[in-house]
């Protein structure tokens, strides 16, 4: 919308999806988790008891996602298909291991959200393909956090987003997914950081090592919200803080 308003994006044709909207605005729960229609507004997701019960990380994320006016009209499908690396939902959905049902003339296919983005505002979606549903596995007691780091107004787009979903007991991290956004040209899984954590017991040294691995594995993008070297430092700090936040630990402050 902003791009059209600014004249940067000038579509020759616009197709309204309003008439099929009612088929794609439901939130349902089954044994695997949540299925969210792609045209469900972010407000409906924010207020859904099912989402709160099965994917509380999404509910928490909504609190700092843009503002209530935007959440009232923006949809989950739009937040994904746009491919904007500054969005809050893509890293969260990737960390939750969500997938999508895509529909096109040849029928349906399923794609993990983690495989959607190919670059800055670029996705694997074909021109004649739509996101129909988003499937979110139930969190089932996995601990999670999303940290949105802004460098201007609190309500600005983030300079860095970090989503963490983790299972950890007293002995070791059993599973973990960490996804970064905004500082990179697309939402990106920090697999080296995950590998550093997995099987080890969380302590300051381990977290530092994971953060170090994280900043080594991605390329940072400079923009008006921060230079690449600065975003690198932010990630180094926030990978640690996000894991601690997920585990409800405060760390040294």
């Amino acid at each position, binding site marked *: 919308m902003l791009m059209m308003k600014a004249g940067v994006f000038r579509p020759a044709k616009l197709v309204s999806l309003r008439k099929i909207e009612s088929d794609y605005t439901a939130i349902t729960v089954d044994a695997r988790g949540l299925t969210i229609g792609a045209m469900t507004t972010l407000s409906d997701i924010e207020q859904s008891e099912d989402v709160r019960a099965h994917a509380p990380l999404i509910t928490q994320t909504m609190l700092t996602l843009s503002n209530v006016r935007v959440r009232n009209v923006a949809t989950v499908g739009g937040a994904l298909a746009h491919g904007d690396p500054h969005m809050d939902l893509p890293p969260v959905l990737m960390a939750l291991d969500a997938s999508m049902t895509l529909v096109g003339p040849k029928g349906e296919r399923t794609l993990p959200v983690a495989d959607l983005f190919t670059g800055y505002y670029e996705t694997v979606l074909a021109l004649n393909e739509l996101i129909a549903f988003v499937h979110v596995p139930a969190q089932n007691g996995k601990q999670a956090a999303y940290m949105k780091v802004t*460098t*201007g*107004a*609190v*309500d600005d*787009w983030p300079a860095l987003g970090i989503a963490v979903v983790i299972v950890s007991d007293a002995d070791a991290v059993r599973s973990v997914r960490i996804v970064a956004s905004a500082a990179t040209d697309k939402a990106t899984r920090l697999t080296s950081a995950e590998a550093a954590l997995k099987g080890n017991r969380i302590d300051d040294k381990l977290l530092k090592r994971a953060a170090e691995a994280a900043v080594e594995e991605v390329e940072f993008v*400079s923009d008006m919200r921060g230079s690449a*070297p*600065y975003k690198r430092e932010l990630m180094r700090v926030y990978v640690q803080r996000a894991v601690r936040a997920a585990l409800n630990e405060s760390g040294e402050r």
Partner: protein
Amino acid sequence: MAPTETPAATTRAGSQIGRSVPRTEGRDKVTGRAEYVHNMRLPGMLVAKIFRSTVAHGLIKSIDTNAAKNVPGVLHVVTIDDVRKLIPNPYYGPAFHDQPILADKKVRFVGEPVAAVLASDPHIAEQAVQLISAEYEELPAVFDEVEALTSNVFVHDELQPAATFADLKHLKGLKNTNLALSFKLRRGDFERAYAGAAHRFEHEFRTQKVLHLPFEPHATIADYKNTGVTLYTASQGPSFVRTEIARLLGWPENRVRIKVPYLGSGYGAKLYIKLEALALALSMIARKPVKLALTMEEMFYQITKHPCTFRIKSGLDNDGRIVARKCEVFWNGGAYADIGPRVTQKAGVTASGPYDIDNVSIDSHALYTNVTPSGALRGFGVPQLVWAYESHTDMIARELKLDPVAFRRKNLMRDGNQHTTSQVLKDAAIEPVMDLVLDRMAWARQLEKGIGVIRRGRGFAIAIKTVTTPTTSVAIVNVSADGSVTLYCSTIDMGQGSNTVLAQIVGEVLNVPAESVRIAQPDTDVTPYDMGTLGSRSTFHMGHAARLAAEEARDKIKQLARDVGEPEGSNIPIAELFKKRYGMQAGNIVGSGTYKPDYVSPAPETGLSPNVTPFWMSSGAGAEVAVDTETGHVEITKLVNVIDCGTAINPKLVETQISGAALMHLGFTMFEKMHFDGGQVTNASLADYKIPGIRDLPGTMENLWVDNFQGNGPFGAKGVGEVATFCVSPAIANAIDDAVGVRLTELPLNPEAVYRALRAKAGNPLDEA
């Protein structure tokens, strides 16, 4: 308050001053009934959209408007050649007649209007604008204010000062310069005193380009007829617009009518003349009413605050007294002067701060550059100066290990002292303001600074400002035959509450509740002259004019009572007086008042004057911060804002003016910034340029004023609107230094800037981008 609920019965008349009267227009605004230019439509009205320059500096080789003209629904595509046929000298501006109605042979900044499309529908006009193309021969451009002083790139071939300002006459026709005006002040002998000083300090401070962003963008409707022209415009100064439009047309002022409905704020963006000249020209060409209304994105190409570089030197004796101070201030005026030369001069007067210094040298330079023009923004340049001199003051105290309070107290100006200009200070509560800040900050108590990742600190700052002067306000008070009262004046209520305050003043004099006084909408056919709603001048200047007008009406009512044979002291209702005089409900009593304070122009060679301002504004701010040493994020845990406004005529409005001014400046201090790439603004929208939201508020915020009485003010009052902007930036920078020992000298104080300073201090600087 609905008319039937007028609280006449419950509110004691004659006690209007010091009462928090709710805003008279508040109900209309929150229920969507208030009129704004954006919502107005005239029969047969066309809409205009602007085609803008994409280069910062260039000669126009050609403009191709053919494709745009062929779009169905487009009536005209206009360039300067079309304008010149109707307005032979199509240049305007308050200080310099340097701004062409549309680019004339040359473009001087990215975003400058080059052509305009007139259509029946805004979307058609917008579409047609996209089909216009222009070819430019690009010229080297100059963007930096310090560079502009010595650059070989000249934004204008020749200076064109407006004849209205006598002190600019000597600049007429000057070539090969970007210097629009220099203000100079010399007191004592700076060079000698500085050379002999025991301690010498020299620092440079910079501020960034930011803008006003009133929530209502600029909008004007022009309705031109041979017999007269009416402009409906979102303006803070209808009287000035009328003068300037009459000048462009070569008409007497009484054929030009300027009407101003409510404004969705202004902050200085809507002063002097903005869209009005182009809207007039377009209506003349179309022979129809034309609306020109900017989008929020276009605001980035209209007017901004002045970026500024301030080089300051101070010499101290061994006793901690400042004996010498030199201020060199460079103002980045952008491509057209607007009111920049006045900012340069009026702010320049107080560049050395609220300190009693015997030897002062001030040079304040207005410079042309190839960016969006700069103008007045809530403080008329003073916030940029205070940012520098109060950071400098703290840096000196820190280096000499002086207590920042004692150091200031030792050097502070007080009533009875001569200000730098030689004017004797009167009713300026500078020290009481500082004391209240310190009291509310609990300064005597140590602050727990912390030892972990988060470090805490605190800082404060104090400032003074003159009021833009000499300026004139005229008011008319009309008492109708039923006794109801209307005030006619051209002060614009843009949200600051001037209507309410003026109603209180009139009500106080006439002994009626403020809620019953009607304020006529500004309309130059009806409401008399006012210099403009700017510079915290309305309560003082228009307040006096309204008081005088009400007093004259009151005297005439007394005379009427005598004429109809009422005994002295009779309390017969006013309506009965009219009936007795005219035999029915008929007639009017009209009182008028004109106010212009005394003034002595600063001497051209020394800048000295015994009377540069009728009152002094002073303010102080104190900040407590928590700095995240791992990321540079600064949380403002407490912000105390204190001002001296003399009598608070409406305490609630004073409080909201203080909080509004401080929060606006919080954005300018912490993160707001127009980013540029080769003269092109790269964040020209609210998606990428954020202003403070509710979650950016300090943890605690106090908005206070000291008990003071302005002897020459209306009921002891003086201006409020800008005062709380002055000290926010240095108070926060001083607090950051206190917390983590780094000193930032350039705004904004964003996390990366703080983090980089921390790394530099640790001897491990962060790589450049």
